[in-house]
């Protein structure tokens, strides 16, 4: 007979404290929609902001002292990796809410409790994905995140593009989830366990498993499922349309949060436990990383819509991060974590600037809309330039250091030609990132530009200033952040 444990140890609750805070806030914010007459129209946004900051505080308060452990019977892993990713994801949620507060001034539907509660629930899913020690929890968390984001993508009810984006993302995302689940079923079939730690242990003690096609099938299906989420070529087709159609605040969230959570899942499920079968995935991942970088960068060259351009650039960045996956060492994993953190700041920043350039009910997303912006709004031009320099990987920004760490580790592991390709790709990418800077500062049509910033709330100023500062600090003092990432890698000892 199974004995029921009625009272869980406090450790269990401490491990999921940020998630509890976020869910409570989400429910509170959702209820605010019911009492419309009693609460201020902007109350849901500020409550969500307070909740996300509280969750961030919880992550820092709980910390990750001591040896890695697990709670809820192996369901949630408590280690540096969980801490780091929870931190990054909470920062992403807070920044996204700050951007949304201002974006809601242009689009009324973005101010509702539903919007913020979906945002927070997606965040809960992301954190669970990064901390899950069990494949079932990981899958359910992925669904929580995905379903929230499908709904958020279609939030512009009056724009057909937004509905199209949501439908495309939903259909392809459902396919991706099905692949992932099928892959997990194969992993379970091969190893007899759903616990990540036990899976790794089984593979270590049964090396003959590696010769069976079972694990290869598991790997291929799982990487296809996660590849959808990180927009790895050839599973990237939805990215540009979805990023373009989604509300800009949501696009920034998708590009950073989903990617961080999906890469966390990639490290948790494949990179570390299946490390003994590394030799069998080198070729396929080499090609995938090469294509992801190259396709993203080449197509980004010809984009005139800045959201599409940033979408292709996010594909390219996924390719750079895959270099760390290929290298596979602990330091390479630290490089991936560092890059995910920098990427969160610079990408949310860039999308935040795009989200600022709106008027009531309309967005300015063409690159030519940026003409002369650098002189008209010098500070805005400056922070946008910082983000674009960082995305291009130009020192002294964090983007440069991130690439430096990833490329060095890939070189050490012997992927010389792939690093050469990545270098060439970085040079190509400079063209389209700097094109925006050139348009902002040197464009002849600058005098014709009639864009006026409609609404600049303190929230977005804080968000952009924080992101720009973080990008610069991570570029100038990288060693602190890199050692933080280095202490946070997921390993099995």
């Amino acid at each position, binding site marked *: 007979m*199974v004995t029921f444990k009625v009272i869980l140890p406090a450790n269990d609750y401490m491990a999921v404290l940020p998630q509890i805070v976020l869910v409570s806030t989400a429910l509170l914010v959702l209820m605010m929609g019911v009492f419309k007459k009693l609460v201020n129209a902007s109350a849901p946004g500020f409550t969500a902001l307070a909740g996300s900051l509280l969750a961030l505080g919880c992550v820092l308060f709980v910390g990750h002292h001591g040896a890695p452990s697990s709670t809820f019977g192996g369901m949630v892993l408590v280690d540096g990796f969980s801490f780091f990713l929870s931190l990054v994801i909470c920062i992403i949620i807070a920044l996204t809410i700050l951007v949304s507060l201002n974006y809601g001034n242009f689009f009324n539907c973005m101010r509702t409790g539903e919007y913020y509660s979906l945002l927070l*629930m997606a965040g809960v899913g992301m954190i669970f994905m990064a901390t899950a020690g069990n494949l079932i929890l990981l899958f359910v968390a992925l669904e929580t995140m995905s379903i929230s984001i499908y*709904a958020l993508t279609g939030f512009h009810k009056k724009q057909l593009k937004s509905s199209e984006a949501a439908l495309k993302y939903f259909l392809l995302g459902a396919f991706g989830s099905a692949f992932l689940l099928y892959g997990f079923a194969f992993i379970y079939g091969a190893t007899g366990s759903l616990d990540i730690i036990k899976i790794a242990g089984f593979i270590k003690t049964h090396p003959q498993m590696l010769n069976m096609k079972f694990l290869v099938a598991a790997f291929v299906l799982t990487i296809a499922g996660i590849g959808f989420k990180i927009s790895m070529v050839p599973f990237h087709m939805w990215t540009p349309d979805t990023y373009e159609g989604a509300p800009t605040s949501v696009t920034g969230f998708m590009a950073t949060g989903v990617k961080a959570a999906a890469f966390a899942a990639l490290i948790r499920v494949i990179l570390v436990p299946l490390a003994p079968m590394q030799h069998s995935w080198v070729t396929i991942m080499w090609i995938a990383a090469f294509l992801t970088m190259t396709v993203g960068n080449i197509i980004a060259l010809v984009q005139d819509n800045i959201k599409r351009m940033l979408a292709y650039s996010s594909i390219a960045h996924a390719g750079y991060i895959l270099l760390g996956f290929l290298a596979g060492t602990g330091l390479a994993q630290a490089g991936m974590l560092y890059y995910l953190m920098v990427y969160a700041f610079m990408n949310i920043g860039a999308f935040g600037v795009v989200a600022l350039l709106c008027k009531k009910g309309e967005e300015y997303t063409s690159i030519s809309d940026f003409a002369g912006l650098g002189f008209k709004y010098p500070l805005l031009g400056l922070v946008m330039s910082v983000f674009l320099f960082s995305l291009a990987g130009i020192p002294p920004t964090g983007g440069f250091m991130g690439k430096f760490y990833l490329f060095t580790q890939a070189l050490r592991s012997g992927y010389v030609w792939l690093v050469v390709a990545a270098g060439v790709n970085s040079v190509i990418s400079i063209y389209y990132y700097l094109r925006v800077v050139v348009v902002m500062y040197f464009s002849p049509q600058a005098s014709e530009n009639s864009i006026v910033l409609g609404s600049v709330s303190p929230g977005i100023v804080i968000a952009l200033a924080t992101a720009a500062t973080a990008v610069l600090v991570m570029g100038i003092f990288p060693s602190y952040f890199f050692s933080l990432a280095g202490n946070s890698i997921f390993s099995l000892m």
Partner: protein
Amino acid sequence: MDTSGLNFILQAAFWVTVALTISGAAIAVFPRNILYNVLGLALALIGVSGFYLYLGSLFVALMQLLIYVGAICIAIVFAIMLSRPLHVDIPPRSAGKVWLGILAATVFFIGAAGVALKTNWQAAAGHVYKASQWSVQNIGNALLTRYELVFEVISLVLLVAIIGAVITAGFSRRISS
């Protein structure tokens, strides 16, 4: 005790289930009225859940009924209700599609039959499970002890799905009002 009578009834029930499933599948394919097709599909799926029952897995049989018949077929009926009216003339079946369909079905059948014939169905030593191990009661216990956290997160998934559906379907009215 003489169990031959019982055996006979069991055998008869099995073949009735087979007949139900096959005739349901035939109704799902041949009539040109799509509503009949859906109902045939539901019949075939009920038959499949009968097989699970026959194999001693009550839980899977119930899930099959609940998910496939109760949810998916009803969802298809809803989809039919919201799409082209039934009384509009249906174009005749094209011969090419029929042949392609037959080809696809044959390939699938050969594949499935090949797997069924080639597999050694003897359970490996040490891996014999009793049917009681996946009884509904045990699954319920596992769900609320070992998998309690997952159970909670699933409720979150459902909540998110409900909010998403409400927004996708009915949000525009609220904005305009």
